[in-house]
Structures are given as structure tokens and as C-alpha cells.
């Protein structure tokens, strides 16, 4: 079924001089789509031609519309010889294919040449007329929306989250075709760019078809990568999460939250015993938010009230209400059963999301990962995808079984990656094993979703941490304790996850970026022997990376990692491991023990002394870090119990927090068992090095924070000043006597220096937080290590923070009386434990959680949470904010985050997925490797911005540089670089009155919730 693509070439500017004699250019344009080509007239002798062409019309299948890019070539007319190409523009017209995105692409595009870079700009207008297609057997999937964002996009709500979609396509790499020997580098690069563009289109279309089959309408957390396998081909593969999304129509969406009764449930049985308690209260929570039917932020308040009414209002959706609110064993079992059935049909119950609708995530089991080493030259039929499909299926199967071992039926925060060196390829997959609430996974909940009050009586802020596996039959040895938050359920001592910190997690203090870095030398070998060597090394690397992470986490005085990403890179003669994560202190988990150093030769006096010196240093560091990151859990709890009105700062922190968590597992037993304190045995110089390296990580200078997750716990008052950046470093190792230690030191220094440089460069933004810090390592050659970092620096406002806190204090003052009343109505069992006069610790803990969680009506909590993420729905109300009247030439913001601080995303315009190759044969003239790459990355940013602006957008969110492959040959004065970036083009509106809103809103919202509370009691 056809569509009509219409293209108009308006003008060009800043064209290069193509005719030396006249210093001018006779430019014309070829517009190509599929096999059809149109040409404009030649505009003689101008560097700023005005073609003002007619509309070129292409009548094409929508299948082609999805696969093919529009190709615009600018040429210089030459009467006597062949016309010279000035450069090209590829335009992905996919955003025009679904109704809610862009309607027209119009703007100035940089004209790009793979040898010369950007050479002027061209103004183009593109439109598509799509005819409605009712053909059920169609090959196209127009209309399926794609999002790179790994959470539900801000102006949508998730009706159903269907699950994992993946696809992989293979082609011969043009660079390795025989014809490449005779064609120019430019032709070869363009063939590659075009091929990848085509393959991406095809891949996206195929994934879209799968989504339609699942009856979804969108893919969220779409991650597309390409593998340059060399001789065996070029693979483009993608994974994502199929969803059914509903567009939120208006600010009214927020209103339900206000009305949402704060009748939150309280868990009577909680103080009894962790085990099966069936007297759970029913469904309590109102759905306080526009998007999802229930929210985890409902705290238990003690009004054990009106669950019945709530229930009656709730259409039974078959599965939901029955199981409502059972906590503990039976509930878990039931839940698991249901979810399992929901997930069973699915081959892989994986989700690429890292942040979830409230209530979606029930428990987190831990990190699961799998790797496998493959030989590319053993692929039987390299042109077909079967072999690779089988490889990935195998790995996913492994992940699935790991998750099962953890008592989990699903994997969230799932991602896949490869590392290729010559014919060896390491495939990696990792994610976080989890137990999910079935409600979002089912069809038929569409209606119910809105009104359904779910039962979710999982304690807000700590439910995620509770172990999903059977305590008596643990998959690995772990040290379990009762949850420090609810005291009901068991939690592990340390949790590792690949997901973002849930917004409602209870966190104490601030978080920080934690990295483990590791190099291992490997003998150069061929084929099978090489693969075996690598396979043998992998478990050791994983173990060491894990140990390092654990040590560093303890050194920071923290107990959980979020956003964990372990990258293992293979090179000719070494393996590199780089793990990045954000460490936090989860209130629900026990305080981490210290690090104990033990020497092996206790009789040597000076040695003893040395050891004790080290020990002191470590202890000092831990103490310093606790102060730095404001981690002071026990004291806090005491204070809170002592006085009904907690200290403002602590209060706000508690409000904001809450977390999900997990502990971690891979195939190896990496957990460190029952030791209370972590013991490092210094038995050789290696271990000594390790301890030293622990202490060499310097904390960021004051005023700086860093994390690799979306938001930083403890900071909620972002300003709109953001700076996204990419930094690349390559070091050459001296090839002489390379040892593991020397390598480790080099690598460690490289990363640390890079961070130091970033802090220095961004010093004008203090106080500031580097968010979503994303490191990637590659080994382009024998002695080269390349590290690429992309992150965003966001300034926050210290003063504003104080204000917000103040309003919280007022709030809590207002509420103090209510709190007390509520206290009296506590069911007896709980009361006895929780009366403030009872001094013993468990009670205190409990009360603390009670007061911090339940004292505040749900709606209000929601507001607080929203403030933590500046894009919170709270801001929806602020419609009056005028759209940013930006007079300057189309500023386009870019950020790896899913939101823009201080602004509201009003529209998603479509996915940006671009691939560029740049090559030079005059490396020195272009400023050497640094000059070359600096210019290229700047050009890539420019092209992304231009495309977004042409779609009518003013920002890219969830921006990611997925690949930056750099190769140089200084002797030949040559270099080549391939870059692949993606993100979501959006329109945002600045919240210019953000401050006013944030101070007023709580009041506004407080009213209804308080009323709700009264009604129920």
C-alpha cells in the first residue's frame, strides 16, 4: 500500500568553493529514494544557491518508506568532466510515519562528506502522505513508535508492557567486498553508511511487526547496535521492550493524584513475623497517578480502612484483585504463579527498561549475566542470521535460567553487547533478575488499570530489596537479615542491580559513581586456542571485577549498586574489564561492615605495623566517605524517633528515597558469604597493589557529584543548565615488560585522569552533578587503550534546596497533629511496638519507617518524588508556562537522560539513529588524531541537532553514543572513525515558573489527601 513522499530542495549556504578559477560553485542536487532519482537545476556560480525546486514526489510502498533513507546529494556541475560530489544528507523519514510524531521535516541540514566532513548546509522540506492500510498481512509496521528511553516516556502511560522484542540482520560488509579494492574510500564509506541505514530501517520495521503481533504499539528501551565482524559480515541487531502506550492528553492527568485518597494501607501483620501473613489489608491504594493503576509510594498508614469500598470500585480483572495485597509467602507464591503464567508464553521474559511504572517491580533478585566466546570464522553461512540468532538465544536462555535460580521469573534492565577482536567475539548479556507484578503484563487490564486499586501492600521503599528466593534454599551463600525498613522480610547485605534507582526507594545520603577497572594479559593465539584462553580468563575477570566493586562499595560505606554495567573488552594480547555503577546506601539494607586487613606473616613487627597503618587508612577513608556522602543512618533514625518532626534535611531525604535492589549473582559464586566484615588478606604483592589501588581513587572535588544513573539521590533541585559532552582518550602502552600490575595501573590512571579532567573543565558549573556517566573501553590496536565517556553535567541550586526543605518542614508541622491521631488508631499489635516511648531498636526502626513513609499522604509523597525528578507530573499543571521563546538559531539540547531538568517534554518526535563514517588521508593537516576526532564528534553533534531541529524539536533525550570505532595509521597520515548515535527527538517546554509551582503544589495537593485520610479513619 503506497504512500507519497514529497521533497523540496529550497536552498544551500556556505558551500565550499569547487571551482578554483572563479572561487565559486555551480551546484545542483540529486534527490534519491529507492531507485528513483530527481535532479534540481544547476544554480550557477554561487556559494549560497537558491534552488527553490518543485516538489519531487516519490510513490512508494510503506515498507520502503521504513527501510530506505532519503538520500540527498549535492554536486558541482562540470561541463567537461564528471560532476564532483560536494556531500550528502541522509534523512530518516521514519518519524513522519506515525501520527503523533513530526508532520514535516524542514530545515537546514549539514552537507556531509566522509572525507571532508561538513561542507555547507542545505535547506530541505520533506512530507509524507500515507494512505490508510488495512492489509493485515502487510510487511510494514508503520505506526509503531520507537523510544530509546528506557522508561515509560514522559507523556505516555503504559497500558500493557508486553515484553522482549529482538531482531538481527546480517549483510556483507562493503569494506570487505572485492570491489573495495578498486573503489575510492569515499565510495566505500558511503556504501557502508547507506547499507547500515538500510539495515537499521529493515530491523526497525521487523521489530515493529513483532510488536504489532504482540498487539503493542510501541517499543521502549530500543537499543540498536552494529557489530563489525570483518570478513564474516556486518550485523545490525536490536532489542527493546514492546508496550502498549496511551498518550496522556492533558494536565488533568495529574489530578487523580491529588484526589487519590491517602487511604493507604497499613500492614497489620507486619510486626508479626516475616512469614505468611494473610491478614493483609486489602487494596488500598488509590491510583494516584495518571499513568498506572497503583503506585508503590503508598505507604502504609494506619488507617486500615476502606479497602472494601475501594475493592468494590475495582473491576475485577481476573487476576488482580484476588491476590490483592497479600504480602509474604502466600502472596509471593501467588504472585509468582500468576506472573509466571503471564510470562510463560514468552520465550524470554526480559525487559530493557531500567525504570518502571510504580508497582511494576516487586522484588529484585540480583544481577544475572552471561558471556560466551565465539569464533566468527566458524560461521557456516555468514550471510544468514541463523548462527548469530542461535548464539544469542543460547545466552538469553542462560540468563533466563540464572534468573530462575534466583527465584525470579523475569529480567529487567536487560542489555546485550559484543566485543570483537579479529575472529574472536565475546557476546555478553546482563540484567537484573526480578519478580514483577503481573498487572502490566496482561491483556485485558486496559480498562481495569485505571480504576483498579491494587493491593500493593509491599512496603514502599523496601519491597524491592526483599529476597525473592527461598531462604532455606538459597542459590548462593548470602548473609540475610531482616529488612531495616519494615523488619518483616529478609534482605541481603548487599544488592547489585543494572536498573535505575527507583524514585521511591529510601536512600540515605547521596550516591556516587563506583568503578572497577581491570586488565589481564593474554597470550596472542589463533582461533580455537585463543577462544579457549579467553574463556578461561573470563571467570577470573568477573570475580576480580566483582571483588573490586565490593571493596570500593564498602569503602564508600554504601550497600547497594544501581546501573551496574560490566564491560569486558577483548584485544590481541589482553582483556579489559570496566564496571561502572552508582553506589548508594539503601535504608532497608544493613550497614556494611568495614574492611579488615589481615597479613599472612603475623610475626614480623614492621609488617604488622604496616598492616595496621593500612587498616587505619582504610578506616579513615570509610569515615571520610560517610561524611562526604552524608551517610549517617543510625543517628538519623534515633532522632526521628525522638521527635515527631524530623530534621528538615533528613526528612526530605527520607521522603525521596526508596529503592529497589537486588543482590547479585552470576554463574560464579561471587557473594562473600557470612563474614561480617570484609577481610582482605594481604599475602603477596598483588594483594598489596589491590589495597593501594583501592585508596587511590580520589573523590570528586567539592561541589561535584557523579553517578551513572538518571538521577542522583539526595539532589532534587536541578537548574536548567545542562552540558552534555563526549570525551575520548587513547593511550599507548609502552610495550616493554608489560605486567598485569603495570597495565592495571595505566588503565586506572587513564580513567582517573579522565575524570579529573572532566571535573576541571566543568568547574564553572559547580555545584553540579555528572549524571549518566557512561564509560566504554576499546582496544583498537595492540598497545592502544581507548576510553570514551559520555555524560551530562547538570547544575543544581543549593539555595533552592533549602527552600524546598523548608516547605517540607512546614508541611510536617501542619501534619504533626494528624500523625498523632493516626498513631492512636494503630491497631494494637502495631501500637505496642511503635509507640515512641518504646526504646528498643527494632521498634524504632519500624516507627521510623512508619513515620517517614506513612506520615505523609500518598499524593504528597508523590509530589516529593516528582521533585526529585524534575520532570515529575507535578509540573503538568504548569501549563501557563510560555513555550521557550528562543530567539537564537535553534538551540538543541542533548542529554543522555530521559528528561530535561526544569522543563516538560510535550511531544516525542521520533527516534534519531545515525551512523557516520569519517576518513582522512591528511591526518597531520587536520590537527592530528585529536584534531580529527574532535572535529568529527562536533560534526556528529551538529548533524544530530540539525535533524532534531528539522523535525521541529528542541532536544534529544536518552542520547547515547553506541559506538565510536577509531582507527589510525599515522605513518600513512590516515585515520578513520565510525560513530553510531541514537536518542529520542522531543519538544520540551520550559517550566519558567517551576519554583512557584514547586512551592505551591504541595499545599494544593495536601488538601485532598488529608481529607481522604479523614474520611477513611
Amino acid at each position, binding site marked *: 500500500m503506497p504512500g507519497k513522499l514529497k521533497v523540496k530542495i529550497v536552498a544551500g*549556504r*556556505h558551500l565550499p568553493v569547487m571551482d578554483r578559477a572563479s572561487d565559486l560553485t555551480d551546484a545542483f542536487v540529486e534527490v534519491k529514494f529507492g531507485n528513483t532519482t530527481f535532479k534540481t537545476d544547476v544554480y550557477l556560480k554561487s556559494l549560497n544557491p537558491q534552488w527553490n525546486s518543485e516538489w519531487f514526489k516519490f510513490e512508494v510502498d510503506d515498507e520502503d518508506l521504513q527501510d530506505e533513507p532519503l538520500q540527498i546529494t549535492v554536486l558541482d556541475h562540470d561541463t567537461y568532466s564528471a560532476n564532483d560530489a560536494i556531500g550528502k544528507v541522509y534523512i530518516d523519514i521514519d518519524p513522519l510515519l506515525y501520527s503523533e510524531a513530526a508532520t514535516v521535516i524542514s530545515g*537546514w541540514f*549539514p552537507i556531509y562528506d566522509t572525507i571532508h566532513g*561538513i561542507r555547507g*548546509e542545505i535547506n530541505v522540506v520533506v512530507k509524507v502522505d500515507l494512505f490508510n492500510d488495512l492489509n493485515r498481512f502487510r510487511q510494514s509496521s508503520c505506526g509503531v513508535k520507537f523510544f530509546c528511553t528506557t522508561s515509560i516516556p514522559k507523556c505516555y502511560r503504559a497500558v500493557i508492557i508486553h515484553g522482549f522484542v529482538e531482531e538481527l540482520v546480517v549483510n556483507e560488509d562493503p569494506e570487505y567486498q572485492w570491489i573495495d579494492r578498486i573503489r575510492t574510500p569515499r565510495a566505500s564509506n558511503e556504501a557502508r553508511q547507506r547499507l547500515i541505514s538500510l539495515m537499521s530501517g529493515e530491523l526497525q520495521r521487523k521489530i515493529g511487526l513483532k510488536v504489532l503481533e504482540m498487539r503493542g504499539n510501541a517499543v521502549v528501551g530500543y537499543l540498536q547496535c552494529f557489530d563489525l565482524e570483518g570478513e564474516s559480515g556486518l550485523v545490525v541487531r536490536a532489542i527493546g521492550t514492546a508496550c502498549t502506550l496511551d498518550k496522556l492528553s492533558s494536565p488533568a492527568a495529574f489530578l487523580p493524584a491529588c484526589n487519590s485518597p491517602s487511604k493507604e494501607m497499613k500492614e497489620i501483620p507486619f510486626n508479626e513475623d516475616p512469614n505468611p501473613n494473610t491478614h493483609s489489608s486489602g487494596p488500598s491504594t488509590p491510583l494516584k497517578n495518571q499513568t498506572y493503576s497503583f503506585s508503590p509510594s503508598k505507604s502504609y498508614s494506619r488507617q486500615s480502612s476502606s479497602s472494601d469500598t475501594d475493592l468494590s470500585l475495582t473491576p475485577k480483572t481476573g487476576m488482580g484483585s484476588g491476590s490483592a495485597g497479600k504480602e509474604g509467602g502466600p502472596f509471593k507464591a501467588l504472585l509468582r504463579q500468576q506472573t509466571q503464567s503471564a510470562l510463560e508464553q514468552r520465550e524470554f521474559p526480559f525487559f530493557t527498561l531500567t525504570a518502571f511504572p510504580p508497582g511494576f517491580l516487586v522484588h529484585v533478585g540480583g544481577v544475572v549475566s552471561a558471556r560466551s566466546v565465539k569464533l566468527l570464522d566458524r560461521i557456516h553461512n555468514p550471510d544468514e542470521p541463523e548462527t548469530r540468532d542461535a548464539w544469542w538465544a543460547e545466552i538469553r536462555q542462560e540468563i533466563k535460567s540464572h534468573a530462575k535460580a534466583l527465584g525470579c521469573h523475569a529480567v529487567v534492565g536487560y542489555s546485550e553487547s559484543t566485543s570483537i577482536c579479529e575472529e574472536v567475539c565475546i557476546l555478553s548479556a546482563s540484567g537484573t533478575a526480578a519478580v514483577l507484578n503481573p498487572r502490566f503484563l496482561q491483556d485485558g487490564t486496559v480498562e481495569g488499570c485505571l480504576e483498579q486499586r491494587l493491593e500493593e501492600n509491599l512496603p514502599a521503599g523496601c519491597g524491592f530489596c526483599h529476597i525473592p528466593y527461598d531462604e532455606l534454599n538459597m542459590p548462593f551463600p548470602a548473609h540475610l537479615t531482616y529488612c531495616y525498613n519494615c523488619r518483616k522480610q529478609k534482605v541481603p547485605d548487599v544488592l547489585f542491580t543494572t536498573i535505575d534507582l527507583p524514585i521511591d526507594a529510601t536512600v540515605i545520603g547521596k550516591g556516587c559513581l563506583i568503578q572497577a577497572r581491570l586488565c589481564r594479559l593474554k597470550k596472542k593465539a589463533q582461533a580455537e586456542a585463543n577462544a579457549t584462553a579467553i574463556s578461561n580468563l573470563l571467570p577470573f575477570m568477573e570475580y576480580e571485577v566483582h571483588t573490586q566493586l565490593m571493596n570500593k562499595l564498602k569503602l564508600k560505606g554504601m550497600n547497594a549498586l544501581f546501573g551496574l554495567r560490566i564491560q569486558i573488552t577483548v584485544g590481541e594480547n589482553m582483556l579489559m574489564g570496566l564496571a561502572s555503577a552508582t553506589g548508594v546506601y539503601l535504608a532497608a539494607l544493613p550497614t556494611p561492615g568495614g574492611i579488615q586487613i589481615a597479613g599472612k606473616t603475623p610475626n614480623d613487627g614492621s609488617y604488622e605495623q604496616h598492616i595496621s597503618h593500612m587498616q587505619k587508612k582504610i578506616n579513615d577513608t570509610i569515615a571520610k566517605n560517610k561524611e562526604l556522602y552524608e551517610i549517617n543512618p543510625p543517628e538519623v533514625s534515633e532522632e526521628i524517633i525522638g521527635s515527631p518532626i524530623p530534621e528538615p534535611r533528613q526528612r526530605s531525604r527520607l521522603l525521596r528515597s526508596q529503592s529497589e535492589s537486588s543482590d547479585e549473582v552470576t554463574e560464579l559464586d561471587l557473594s562473600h558469604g557470612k563474614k561480617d566484615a570484609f577481610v582482605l588478606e594481604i599475602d603477596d604483592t598483588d594483594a598489596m597493589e589491590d589495597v593501594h589501588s583501592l585508596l587511590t581513587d580520589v573523590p570528586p*572535588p567539592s561541589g561535584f557529584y557523579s553517578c551513572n544513573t538518571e538521577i542522583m539521590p539526595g539532589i532534587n533541585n536541578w537548574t536548567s543548565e545542562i*552540558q*552534555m*559532552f*563526549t*570525551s*575520548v*582518550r*587513547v*593511550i*599507548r*602502552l*609502552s610495550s616493554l615488560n608489560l605486567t598485569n600490575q603495570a597495565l592495571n595501573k*595505566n588503565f586506572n*590512571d*587513564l580513567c582517573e*585522569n579522565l575524570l*579529573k*579532567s*572532566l*571535573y*576541571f*573543565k566543568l*568547574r564553572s558549573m559547580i555545584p553540579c552533578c555528572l549524571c549518566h556517566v557512561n564509560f566504554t573501553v576499546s582496544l583498537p590496536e595492540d598497545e*592502544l587503550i*581507548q576510553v570514551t565517556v559520555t555524560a551530562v553535567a547538570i547544575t543544581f541550586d543549593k539555595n533552592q534546596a533549602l527552600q524546598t526543605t523548608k516547605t517540607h518542614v512546614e508541611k510536617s508541622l501542619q501534619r504533626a497533629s494528624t500523625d498523632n491521631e493516626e498513631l492512636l488508631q494503630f491497631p494494637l499489635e502495631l501500637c505496642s511496638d511503635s509507640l515512641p516511648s518504646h526504646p528498643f531498636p527494632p521498634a524504632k526502626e519500624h516507627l521510623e519507617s512508619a513515620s517517614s513513609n506513612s506520615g505523609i499522604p500518598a499524593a504528597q509523597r508523590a509530589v516529593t518524588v516528582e521533585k526529585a525528578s524534575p520532570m515529575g507530573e507535578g509540573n503538568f499543571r504548569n501549563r501557563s508556562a510560555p513555550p521557550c521563546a528562543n530567539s*537564537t*538559531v535553534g*538551540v*538543541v*539540547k*542533548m542529554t543522555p537522560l530521559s528528561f530535561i531538568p526544569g522543563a516538560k517534554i510535550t511531544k516525542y518526535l521520533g527516534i534519531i539513529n545515525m551512523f557516520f563514517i569519517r576518513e582522512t588521508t591528511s591526518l597531520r593537516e587536520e*590537527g592530528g*588524531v*585529536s*584534531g580529527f*576526532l*574532535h*572535529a568529527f*564528534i*562536533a*560534526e556528529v*553533534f*551538529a548533524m544530530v*541537532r*540539525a535533524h532534531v531541529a528539522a523535525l521541529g524539536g528542541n532536544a534529544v533525550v536518552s542520547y547515547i553514543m553506541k559506538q565510536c570505532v*577509531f582507527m589510525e595509521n599515522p605513518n600513512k597520515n590516515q585515520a578513520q572513525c565510525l560513530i553510531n548515535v541514537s536518542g529520542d527527538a522531543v519538544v520540551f517546554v520550559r517550566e519558567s515558573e517551576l519554583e512557584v509551582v514547586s512551592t505551591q503544589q504541595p499545599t494544593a495537593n495536601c488538601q485532598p489527601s488529608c481529607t481522604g485520610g479523614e474520611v477513611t479513619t
Partner: protein
Amino acid sequence: MTSELDIFVGNTTLIDEDVYRLWLDGYSVSDAVALRVRSGILEQTGATAAVLQSDTMDHYRTFHMLERLLHAPPKLLHQLIFQIPPSRQALLIERYYAFDEAFVREVLGKKLSKGTKKDLDDISTKTGITLKSCRRQFDNFKRVFKVVEEMRGSLVDNIQQHFLLSDRLARDYAAIVFFANNRFETGKKKLQYLSFGDFAFCAELMIQNWTLGAVDSQVDDMDVDLDKEFLQDLKELKMLVADKDLLDLHKSLVCTALRGKLGVFSEMEANFKNLSRGLVNVAAKLTHNKDVRDLFVDLVEKFVEPCRSDHWPLNDVRLFLNQYSASVHSLDGFRHQALWDRYMGTLRGCLLRLYHD
């Protein structure tokens, strides 16, 4: 371990004003790093020298890439490669086109040619400004000159439009272009006491009154070239000194009016004929290009120096020049009143500005 490659690219291009200044001043990366270290930045930020080196390199690379665009500032505004807030763009341009007083005094009025460019070495040594910075400034002068040289319309407006400079800086450039085009001699020893500001002031007056643009705003080169016809006509003024009666009458008119008002009356009276001859002869000579070039030398020699040697206070000079110009209107035998006003109005302004130590 050596760093092969080290870059930082922001979505918004980071501009460090201090580093920009060092770059504009022509310091090499290592000199710039040394200067930054001396500024105490390491202590303030706790950074290391290596970090500073890498940072400086990055900025230098960025500036180097921006330089091409700075050569045609409107391009900087429309280009897509570097996202720079407008205020920063203005700063980049303004600083790039700013020049050193010491440098401009050396090249003011010189032909902006390759020959002059070769002399930049000497200028650099003499002024202590790095050769690189001298080259940038020279190239800026030359670039602006080339672009506006043959353009129609107001010189200042043209410069502002094509180089997006502030009003102040555009006026300075207009003076530079005007001087370069007319090749006024400014380097003579006796002119050394004059600042660029003095010359720029004169240039502005001359552009306003003595160029083609002063009479007709629709001609090419209007603000750059002096009005040839006007210069020709200036010969007519010669009768003011050639006609003895006229000269005497002129003198007596001036002396009558100023008697008792000048502290240096007797000196003025004694010198009147010399001064008047000097001023009128300067006018009459302006038909020859060579003499046009020497305008300032002549003015200083024929007027400024004699007055200065007699210690005329500035106010007396003003009173004298006013009266000297005005009295001509009362000379019945003199018909070129308009011409005289056009000449003397400007000259009076210039002389007053030039008259200082």
C-alpha cells in the same frame, strides 16, 4: 604511557575566556600552560599540570577550528557545528577583532600588503606582542579592508554588518580602513606622541566631511576615498594667503575679536601669517596624493609645533581656531565660504584633538 588522543567535545561549546585571551595573545600551548599555572589555578581547583595541559590543548583546538568562522563572523552565527550562546559568540568575535594600541600605531596608514606583513617580525620585537598575535591583528585589518573597501554605504555600518562588531570597535576599524586606504603617514617621529584614538577621531571627522559620502550617499567607496573634487577646489583657498589684502584683513578681524581674550595674544599676532599660511597651504597641497599622505605631518609641523613652542594653552588654540574660521565669513572678497567651512570645520576638530603633549 603516553596520551595519543585526548579530546572533550560539549554539546554547548565550552569557551574559557582566560584561555581565549592567551590564545589570542599568541602564546603556544606550553607557554599558556605555564602562564595558567602561574595564575594559581592549580591551587584553586586542585587540578594537576597534566589536567591543565589537556584542558589548554582542547581549548586551543576549539579556537583553531573556530578561527575559520571568525574570519567571516556571520558564518559563526549561522554555522551548525558549534552550539554557542549568542552572548558568547559576540564575545568571541569582539575579542578576536580587538587589537593592541601598540600594534595599530605601527601599521596605521601603511599599505596592508605582503610587504608590510614581512615587517611584522620587527613590529613584534619592538612592541613585545607575539608574532602570532601581530599576524592575527594584521590579517584582521586586511580582511576588513578587503571586504568593505569597494562597498557602497556607510563604512561603519558596512563593517558592523559584515563583522558584527560593537559600534565602538567598528568605528575603530573604519578609521583603520580609512587610514590604510589613504595611506596617511603616522609613523614619523614627530607624530609618535599621537595615540590611535587621536587618529581615529580625525578619521571620523574626515569621513563625515571630506569623503564622497559626505555629499552623496549612493556612490561606491563613498566613505573610503576622499572627495577628489573637493580636494581640487581647495586650491581656491590659496587666495586667503596669496592675496595680501585679504590676509591682512583676516588677521585684523581675528586680532580685534581676540584682543584681551588670549593669554598668548602677542605670540598669536606675531605668528598669524605663518599659521594661516601653513593651514591654507596644507589645503592647497591636498591635490597631490603624496601630500595627502603627509597631512598629519604637515598639521603638526605647521600648526601644532609652533603653537606648542609658544606654550599656547588648549583653550587659546580653541578660541583662535574658532575665530580664525569664523572671520573668513566677513571677508567680502572671498567667495568660497562653503568650501572653507567644509575644510576648516573638520580641520579645526582635528587640530584641537592633535594639540596635546
